[in-house]
């Protein structure tokens, strides 16, 4: 029941927030904040509850489960379940929910109620994606979170918002349609084999597929996840969407929506299609490595603050892709770590970009310069998160990238070496970001307010989490490998045999 509540709370909170705005202007953001807060407290409570269960994976790693009939005709059920990986991603989502409400506090001035409605529904859809274990339900949430996100970008976005929002929607929905066909193909192969029509994850796990069928079905899933993650060359929607979205939209996009793609790779692609994955792994890994370098190189060619950060996402998520396809405990732990750390650090950079945009009405780094003298707190925060993004030891991103490279080097040392090159590139873009924006002389004569206490609180909490992830990553890593030991374990075993 608690899992259904996790989805229901933001849904109800969104509706309430929309209505509250009509009754009492200004109430919407409080309703949204309380909703996000309750959600976050609930997820933390779940984490504390299950900390002991995760240390001893006695129940196969599954911490909670809910199942109810939904559409019996197709064997579709409302089946939610949570294991370690779902749990930390849900915690991340809930936390970024609070951050995105906080960073919209003064930025969003028009149609406030509808804004928070869309924001909370996106969060609800993403949490649904992380919890659904029925493939129909998964697809349902997968598509559902797109519509409110489309509105967030299309209504409250920046100059080129209409183009960006339509592009985002078409990429995400279109690739989703291929996944739908693949899901149905998988379900009917299973139906022909067993006579049972079901969309349940556990039932479909052991479907026997002929190699070519498996490959085609796997590609159908892969394209949807590759667009979301994003994997080069399916990333072109991302810079536009991230740049044009309002701050909260960028935070949720980078922090949560991209993770749904990586989560899909982890939860569905490898366990459901072990043989096809083994066959396809070299391609996926090369694409991941290309993404790491390509994203980093494009990032330092940008002059738009948000666009730069958007390209770093392509680079960072490339590590997650490499980690997932290497499929060993180190690399998987690293991939999960990378997902969480990227969510926090990139989210924080978008918050900083939003603060700058709100005060200066520009994101063009050539028009900044010397902001350190007028906004020392913001500049310090900017430096902190830029360093986190480049992967300095002691911060979460470093742990993720290090573990991924360690795991990767056991299977492909060439790719690991190639991916390591990015540490040079990321230093260049991160320091370029800091130098262009904050260092130097204040030639443009900016007179700006420094961070307010609300903004300080937001960024400080994110900085604290980044440090915690970097210095004591064990709680997150405890949660992650459990996925490897539970149902997909079969898949792992088979996969490893194939690799050898």
């Amino acid at each position, binding site marked *: 029941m608690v899992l259904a509540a996790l989805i229901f709370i933001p849904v109800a909170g969104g509706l309430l927030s929309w209505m509250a705005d009509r009754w009492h202007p200004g109430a919407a953001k409080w309703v949204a904040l309380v909703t996000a807060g309750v959600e976050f407290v609930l997820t933390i409570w779940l984490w504390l509850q299950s900390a002991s269960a995760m240390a001893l994976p006695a129940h196969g790693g599954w911490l909670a489960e809910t199942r109810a009939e939904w559409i019996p*005709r197709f064997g579709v059920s409302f089946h939610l379940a949570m294991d370690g990986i779902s749990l930390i991603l849900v915690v991340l989502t809930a936390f970024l929910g609070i951050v995105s409400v906080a960073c919209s506090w003064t930025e969003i001035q028009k149609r406030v109620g509808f804004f928070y409605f869309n924001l909370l529904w996106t969060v609800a859809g993403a949490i649904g994606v992380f919890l659904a274990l029925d493939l129909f339900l998964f697809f349902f949430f997968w598509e559902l979170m797109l519509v409110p996100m489309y509105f967030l970008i299309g209504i409250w976005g920046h100059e080129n918002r*209409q183009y960006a929002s339509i592009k985002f929607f078409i990429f995400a929905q279109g690739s989703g*349609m291929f996944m739908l*066909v693949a899901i*149905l193909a998988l379900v009917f192969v299973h139906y022909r084999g067993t006579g049972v029509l079901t969309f349940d994850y556990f039932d479909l796990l052991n479907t026997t597929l002929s190699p070519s069928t498996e490959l085609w079905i796997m590609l159908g899933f892969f394209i949807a996840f590759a667009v979301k993650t994003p994997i080069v060359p399916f990333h072109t929607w991302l810079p536009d969407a991230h740049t044009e979205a309002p701050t909260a939209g960028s935070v949720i996009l980078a922090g949560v929506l991209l993770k749904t793609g990586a989560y899909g790779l982890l939860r569905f692609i490898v366990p459901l299609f072990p043989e096809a994955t083994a066959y396809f792994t070299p391609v996926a890994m090369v694409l991941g490595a290309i993404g790491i370098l390509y994203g980093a190189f494009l990032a330092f060619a940008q002059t738009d603050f948000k666009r730069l950060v958007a390209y770093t996402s392509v680079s960072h998520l490339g590590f997650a892709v490499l980690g997932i396809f290497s499929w060993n405990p180190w690399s998987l732990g690293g991939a999960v770590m990378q997902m969480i750390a990227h969510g926090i650090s990139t989210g924080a950079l978008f918050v900083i970009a939003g603060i700058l945009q709100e005060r200066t009405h520009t994101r063009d780094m050539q028009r900044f310069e010397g902001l350190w003298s007028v906004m020392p707190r913001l500049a310090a925060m900017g430096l902190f998160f830029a360093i986190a993004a480049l992967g300095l030891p002691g911060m979460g991103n470093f742990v993720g990238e290090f573990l991924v490279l360690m795991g990767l080097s056991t299977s492909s040392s060439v790719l690991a070496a190639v991916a390591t090159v990015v540490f040079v590139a990321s230093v260049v873009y991160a320091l370029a970001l800091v130098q262009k924006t904050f260092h130097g002389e204040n030639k443009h004569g900016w007179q700006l307010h420094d961070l307010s206490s609300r903004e300080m609180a937001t960024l400080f909490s994110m900085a604290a989490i980044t440090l915690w992830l970097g210095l004591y990553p064990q709680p997150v890593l405890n949660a992650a490998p459990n996925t490897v030991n539970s149902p997909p374990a079969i898949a792992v075993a088979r996969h490893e045999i194939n690799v050898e």
Partner: protein
Amino acid sequence: MPSTLHSDSLHFDLVTLSPLILLAAAAVVVMLAAAFYRHPRPVMILTLAGLVLSFTALFLPFLPQGIAGIASPQVTALLVLDHYALFFIGLIVVATFVVAVLCYRYFGGDESRHEALYILLLLAALGGAVLVASSHFASFFLGLELLSISLFALIAYPRFTEHPLEAGIKYLILAGFSSGLLVFGMALVYAQLGTMQFVKIGAMLAAPDGALELYGLAGLALIVTGVGFKLALVPFHMWTPDVYEGAPAPITAFIATVSKGAMLALLLRYFLMAGAHQSQSIIFALSLVAVATILVGNLLALLQDNIKRILAYSSIAQLGYLLVGFLAFDQLAIEAVAYFLTAYFVTMLGAFGVVTVLSDGFNGGSAGEFPDAVERDSDRLADYAGLFWHRPWLAGVFTAMLLSLAGIPLTMGFIGKFYIITAGVEASLWMPVITLVVGSIIGLFYYLRIITVMYASGPEAAGEAIMLRAASPSFAESVTLAALALLLIWLGIFPAQLIGVLEGAGVGLT
């Protein structure tokens, strides 16, 4: 049939036929009422009452006891009122009800003399109901003509205005042409097999040496062509955008739903009962038509700037999707087609309902009486700029309808498309299914374009003069649109009950 049972079985037959009889009786009563007391309001109320009665009569066969329970669904060789027919008659009756409600204010309310419109609507609904219940070429043709002839008059009802008249004449020529093809096709099938009953045709073809020869095959091809015109399948779709644009908005809703839905339900029945799906060449041709319909409908919709034309091309594409499910020809196909059609009915009625509500309509049906009557509906994209910010509920309903057409979750359109793809994948129709996916991706673009315009604010909206006239929806219109939107979402989240009904509807046909 034995003579001793004659009076009893006649009695049963009348009970079975009661939905159709009530529709016909309603048309007569409404006509008489209009002759003696010319006021639209009582006439409209009588119409709605007739439709409600007819709808209630659909449930007679489901009564647990009494004569209705044992009556045979087959009434003479012409009509069969099985669950399949009853379901579609229900759909047609409800759609007609919605259209009648939408017509009232649009055609001038109580101040105008538009009573005849309701008679025509009832007759058209009767024609549609006969079509879905027909099991014989004669009733097929009868139902079709009743539907088409009422439609010419309905389309050109504002007869002093240019566009509806033009649309009416286009439709007249097209309908005459396609009826000609149909009759010729039926004659050719009859020439080979010597029967006009669907079941007997099916039985003859199922016999060991039975297969369609040249005559029969040519006849089947002509029938499919004739129906293809009515369904606006590519390459027989040219008339659709013009007629949709020219016809008054509520009548457009009627053409898009009742006329197309009844034809498709009939075609599916014909294929299954008369065994036409055994003919590989026809199936191949229909697959090509489905692929072409999806692609052409979606691509041409991209080029339009008029909402009614976009919806026209969108409805062409939707029919293409339907064909994908149709081609599976099994129990799942019937369910998929029926569910998708239901979703399509709700969505199209809702979408054209919004267009209707936003339009001034035709006061009195004659521009002469009201020289300031506007010559067109609110159907330009620019009319919808920023709609969400001054008419949020209306824009919300329209958004829901468009998202349903695009097949986004929480709407019936999603479940419908899911059903269709399921049927297609189950029958391994890979080519049409992939085309459907590509088509939906293209389709997103023009649906989003309308949505984006509706939600545009600031410079985008201010640049366009806001053309929306002051027309405010009547209470009945608001309730209807709200009900459609709620239905759309309710059945999009909890489709299990409707699916249960549909499972019953398909029994006995395959």
